[in-house]
């Protein structure tokens, strides 16, 4: 797969991988890209170019492994990206899913989708709670550890970090996957159009979340381990 490099133009990379539109937004780069290259955009926004390269390539290629020179990332920019991704999950994906669930429930109250709504809402509430805890408590704590600032050991947060991907977003991602699978295999709604949209959003959300988890674990939480070994 072709890798994205500092000399590629933003308009080209987004037109080839539309998923990157939202990713660029979270990196602080808005539309009207003009002829800007990745390097120029990063200079203009004072954004760490290594972070840009690592993030976009992880999103387009599951097997991406960065070269050594790109491994040295700005943790401040990374934390900002991760936080903005959480906001996108909460403020874009979840309301879209909620709207589609309601629309299907109204049009086809006897469909399976209407019946499973309550279960889904419960899983979503857990995810949001978890998400906010990470933004407000865990990320700032991790930054203090990595940057060597004064901090007070907190067993609850340490346990949260130690469980790693096993329990952070993975549970919700698994629930998304299951829901998708169940809809595809067992639900025959009368409103096919809305159902198609719901499956599309579920798929995009699930994929986005998986990439987010990969970046978070590989480049953010792993820094604590490195710090410990160093």
């Amino acid at each position, binding site marked *: 797969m072709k890798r994205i490099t500092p000399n590629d133009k933003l308009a080209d990379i987004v037109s080839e991988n539309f998923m990157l539109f939202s990713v660029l937004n979270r990196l602080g780069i808005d539309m009207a890209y003009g002829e800007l290259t990745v390097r120029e955009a990063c200079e203009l926004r004072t954004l760490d170019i290594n972070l840009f390269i690592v993030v976009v390539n992880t999103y387009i290629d599951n097997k991406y492994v960065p070269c050594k020179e790109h491994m040295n990332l700005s943790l401040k920019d990374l934390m900002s990206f991760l936080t903005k991704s959480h906001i996108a999950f909460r403020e874009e994906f979840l309301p879209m899913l909620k709207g589609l669930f309601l629309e299907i429930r109204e049009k086809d109250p006897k469909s*399976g989708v209407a019946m*499973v709504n309550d*279960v*889904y809402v419960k899983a979503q509430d857990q995810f949001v709670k978890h998400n906010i805890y990470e933004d407000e408590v865990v990320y700032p704590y991790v930054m203090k550890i990595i940057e060597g600032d004064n901090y007070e050991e907190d067993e609850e947060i340490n346990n949260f970090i130690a469980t790693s991907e096993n329990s952070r977003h993975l549970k919700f991602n*698994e*629930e998304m*996957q299951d829901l998708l699978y*169940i809809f595809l*295999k067992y639900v025959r709604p009368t409103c096919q159009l809305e159902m198609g949209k719901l499956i599309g959003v579920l798929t995009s959300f699930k994929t986005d979340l998986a990439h987010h988890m990969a970046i978070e674990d590989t480049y953010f939480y792993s820094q604590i381990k490195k710090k410990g070994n160093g």
Partner: protein
Amino acid sequence: MDKKVIFIHKSEILAEGMNSFLYPTFGMSLIHLSSTKDMSKFIDKENSFTLFIIDEDYSEEVKKFNLSMNNNVDLLWFTKDYSESEDTLYAFSSIEEVKTRVECVLRNHDILTNRNSLVKDLSDREIDVLKLVAKGFANREIGEKLYISIHTVISHRKNITEKLGIKSISGLTVYAILNKLVEPQEIS
């Protein structure tokens, strides 16, 4: 595909006991061998699946057969001490537990040899477990309600997940609702 169980153990009574429920449950005929001497005859048979249940005392002798390399063969060690390990069959297990362990092996084998079969029906017991999972009961509580051990509950849950391809409790709950195994208002 022809399926059979080879039980290698000195005790004839144990072999009789195993045969009395394995055949009616799984339709698998049991052949009893009192030593490993003739076991090679049952390996490398085409279109045939063989499950070896072997007394753990023979573990050294069995190594030379390299059973793990053969897709048409599976192995359970018959042990005197309880072990969580999936490749063991505890000598003092209940019949229900033995059935579950054997079923699990067969299922794994089905998955290895027939990746296209996606949907498989759940057994009555698995449906009982699924209903209780959907209602929010923990493994221990499910075991108490169904009079089975927690290990059996875990085995059933593993089988359910493998059969349905659904991993999360929310997913299993949704599946149970859609298939009318539970009512939405029964979900805690």
